[in-house]
């Protein structure tokens, strides 16, 4: 039976919505209608227990599914449910137009009635997992992950790349904290991670899927080995590299010029009364991070405290810890703005010519040592490793996170995680925190018993041209062209539907969201709107179910009203929208189509924001070429933090 259950939200919604009219007019679409006053409370839930059976299809008209969906997911016996956020998308945003709001509610409920007809039960995914983890890189983050996971009872293999040398590792990581802290931490981690299996070598091949990866290892002793793991954590380190001004500064030609990472060794060797003049300079072309800035301050303070005269030529020093700067001043470090123009080797020492561009002033210093701030770069083996594993890198060559805010330890590939400096140079605390995060995330994944469920794409072999468009589009390596088949790997799938938008033939369809379902729904929204509102213009918002939908919900909470005649259709991901749905919207008479996605780089499925922009641009080009106004179609991002986005987009219609 198809059932409609409405909630008045403790009778508050009756102020803006005419429930009696809804009940009357929606009548024949559903076999039963119930209006409840508090579905989310225990009494409401008990009512649903009794009312809804396994075979019913249900439309819930209440608050946003983000709220009501949570308790209902556990209590509703049927999986075939469509939610209409009458509160956030209708009542709260059309407060001054009861008739219009009620009309809109009718349109949306009618749409949901069609939507549930297309719903299929979610597919349970095979979640067989190898409860073992491979860590690449046995530095601080790597050791931390290893000891965390060991404590959680997970079997860990630690792979150390051939370049790895535990002796100089401490030195290489000095930018993360002062050396005594560092030493202490490493010592502790070594104790707690005892028992981890260590292997020296590199990864030569990866196959399988998230949860069941088969990794081929090439060991330093020449042996090849294949291991099965459920997850991989990349915990490689950063490397120091000489800055671009190294050559000008005679780096490598004289032992009077050194890198910042070499400074502490030099100071440590100094005898008590031996005081030197040390000139430390930044590289103007290197964008300084707060990690590098803090490191610089720590080192110069140490050198000054040992009785040296320390001059720092800087353009900009970033640090999150003001105290470091204060300590440096206190220890007697001299800070001078300016950039190094020339360095000449003289008998009395190195003559450094400094130009202060702001005051067009030139000064010369004769010093014993010239110290260059190093650049922190990704580990040199990062690119080959990323290529083997199929990971994306960011602009600087560090491993890219899937989604910086919400998924900071996930990489672009499911089942592969990052910790510590593999992502970006970090100070000790951040690196340890990120390592703990990664181990928890991996642990959660590996012990996730129960089911992983979702609507998945299904390929019809008969219709498939093997064009590979879906394979190319899938951001998660969840579709593979094997022989004469396109194979879906459910464990890698994020249920985003992006693949479906790419298919030229319709050989691949997304469960519950077939092409026909979109086309039918778009058409019926238009028909119903015209029936109730006549000539009044309307717009359609194709919103992704993540950020954009949250932003539209927030518009409701924040009371950022907008005109009625604006209908939101929720897509799993904005990347699932193809030119077909957009053009269909225009054909049925929508004045404007807005494709709302997550902010740039913030798509929860990695590429949806970018792809939907491309699709909209492409559709606009089609419209231009047939003499239609391309501005009727727009792609834009919406986020919860900007609740007025919806208002801005649909307010000025026409």
């Amino acid at each position, binding site marked *: 039976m198809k059932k409609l259950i409405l909630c008045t939200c403790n009778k508050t919604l009756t102020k803006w919505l005419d429930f009696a009219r809804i009940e009357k007019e929606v009548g024949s679409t559903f076999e039963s209608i119930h209006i409840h006053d508090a579905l989310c409370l225990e009494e409401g839930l008990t009512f649903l227990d009794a009312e809804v059976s396994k075979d019913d299809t249900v439309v819930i008209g209440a608050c946003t599914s983000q709220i009501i969906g949570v308790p209902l997911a556990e209590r509703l016996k049927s999986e075939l449910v469509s939610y209409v956020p009458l509160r956030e998308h209708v009542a709260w945003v059309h407060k001054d137009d009861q008739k219009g709001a009620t009309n809109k509610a009718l349109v949306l409920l009618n749409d949901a009635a069609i939507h549930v007809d297309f719903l299929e039960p979610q597919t349970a995914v095979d979640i067989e997992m190898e409860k073992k983890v491979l860590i690449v890189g046995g530095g601080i983050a790597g050791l931390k992950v290893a000891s965390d996971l060991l404590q959680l009872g997970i079997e860990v293999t630690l792979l150390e790349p051939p370049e790895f040398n535990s002796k100089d590792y401490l030195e290489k990581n000095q930018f993360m904290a002062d050396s005594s802290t560092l030493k202490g931490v490493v010592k502790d981690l070594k104790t707690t991670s005892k028992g981890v299996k260590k292997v020296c070598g590199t990864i030569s091949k990866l196959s399988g899927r998230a949860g069941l990866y088969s990794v081929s290892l090439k060991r330093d002793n020449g042996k090849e080995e294949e291991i099965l793991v459920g997850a991989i954590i990349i915990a490689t380190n950063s490397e120091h590299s000489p800055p671009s001004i190294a050559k000008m500064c005679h780096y490598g030609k004289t032992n009077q010029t050194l890198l910042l990472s070499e400074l502490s060794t030099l100071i440590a060797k100094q005898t008590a009364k031996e005081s030197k003049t040390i000139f430390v300079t930044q590289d103007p072309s290197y964008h300084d991070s707060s990690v590098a800035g803090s490191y610089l301050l720590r080192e110069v303070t140490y050198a000054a405290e040992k009785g040296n005269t320390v001059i720092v030529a800087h353009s900009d020093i970033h640090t999150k810890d003001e105290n470091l700067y204060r300590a440096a001043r206190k220890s007697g470090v001299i800070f001078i703005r300016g950039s190094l123009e020339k360095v000449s080797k003289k008998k009395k020492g190195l003559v450094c010519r400094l130009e202060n561009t702001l005051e067009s002033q030139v000064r010369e210093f004769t010093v014993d040592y010239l110290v260059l701030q190093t650049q922190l770069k990704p580990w040199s083996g990062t690119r080959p490793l990323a290529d083997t594993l199929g990971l994306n890198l960011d602009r600087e060559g560090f491993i890219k996170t899937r989604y910086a805010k919400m998924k900071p330890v996930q990489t672009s590939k499911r089942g592969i995680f990052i910790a510590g400096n593999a992502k970006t140079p970090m100070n000790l605390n951040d690196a340890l925190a990120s390592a703990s995060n990664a181990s928890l995330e991996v642990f959660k994944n590996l012990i996730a018993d129960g089911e992983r469920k979702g609507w998945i794409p299904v390929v019809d072999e008969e*219709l498939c*041209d*093997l*064009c*590979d*468009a*879906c394979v*190319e*589009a899938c951001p998660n390596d969840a579709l593979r062209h094997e022989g004469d088949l396109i194979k879906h790997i459910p464990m890698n799938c994020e249920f985003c539907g992006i693949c479906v938008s*790419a*298919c*030229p*033939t*319709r050989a691949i369809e997304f469960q519950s969201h077939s*092409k026909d379902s979109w*086309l039918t729904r778009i058409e019926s929204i238009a028909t119903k709107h015209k029936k109730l509102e006549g000539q009044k213009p309307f717009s359609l918002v194709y919103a992704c179910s993540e950020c954009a939908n949250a932003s539209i919900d927030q518009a409701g909470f924040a009371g950022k009203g907008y005109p009625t005649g604006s209908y939101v259709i929720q897509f799993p991901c904005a990347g699932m929208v*193809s*030119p*077909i749905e957009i*053009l*269909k919207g*225009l*054909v049925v008479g929508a004045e404007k189509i807005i494709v709302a996605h997550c902010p740039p780089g913030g798509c929860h499925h990695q590429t949806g924001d*970018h*792809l939907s922009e*491309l*699709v909209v*641009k*492409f559709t606009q*080009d*089609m*419209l*231009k*070429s*047939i*003499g*239609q106004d391309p501005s009727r179609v727009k792609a834009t991002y919406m986020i919860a933090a900007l609740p007025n986005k919806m208002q801005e987009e649909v307010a000025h219609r026409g």
Partner: protein
Amino acid sequence: MDKRIQLLDAIRAIAVKTPMNDVEVPESVVGFGTIEYKAQTCSACKKCILACEPAALDMEDTLNMHDYLRVTVPQEGFRSKNREVLVTLLQNLKQDHDYGDVQAISVPEGLPGYGSIVWSAEQCIACDKCIEACPEDCLTLQKTYKLPEIIGPIEAPPPRTEGKDWEPFIVCFVCWECSHAAADLAGLMHLHYPASIRTIRLPCSGALEPIHIMTAMANGADGVLVTGCLLSECHYGGDSPKAGNFMQEGFVKFWSDIFEEIGIGGRLNIDFASAAMGIKFAEIVETFTEQIRKLGPTPIQAKTEVQE
């Protein structure tokens, strides 16, 4: 494939005029034609490209809007439903039905699933393999040969002055069987036929390759005559439509049309005589010589002359 390029180069070498019209390909002639492409059903699957040995096909990042709008979607629809809907929606939005100035649009980089096939007339050997490979029925073979596109512009050679004692120099390809015997018979019968003719014996008229015709022309022949057994009497194919002489008739017709287009029309002919037809053979030669005499010497700068 090199063979095709060689042949086209040979045609360019004997052309004295830029061809202006496409040439019809006779039914019996294989290996030449035009691949017609319907963009509106194409799924950009590249199967045709993989199938094409001479690499005559390629993929371009464009969408042919013109084809999309102009096509009539058949009753049963396209096999590719997404394309069908796209085409229908676009047609629906384009209400004025004026498709004249509709331009192709480019596909944004990074958007999979769209593209257009480009076909190169020059490389194509009309082997049909792409047509068999295409799952969406986008490709068909048309019996026309896009000569202007293939040959390109030709610079006319300086006109040649007719020497006083010029006699037509004709190369005659005769088949081993009937024609050669007919020529012999003509000789035995002391029938008079022009002396300016050089006969070259071939096993069968069907064995004559176009490059030989072009080579003869390039080397200063004023005309080329091909003779074979009477039609349906080919010693190698009888009355099958695949018999050598049948096929060659189609080919020679095709080549003469091409000769017409490249400015040397009338200088190629095919005819048939049985072993017993000495008189007929003499007549054939006579008529053709007369025709060439009227046309005058070949306008082609013979290779040998160029060398001198």
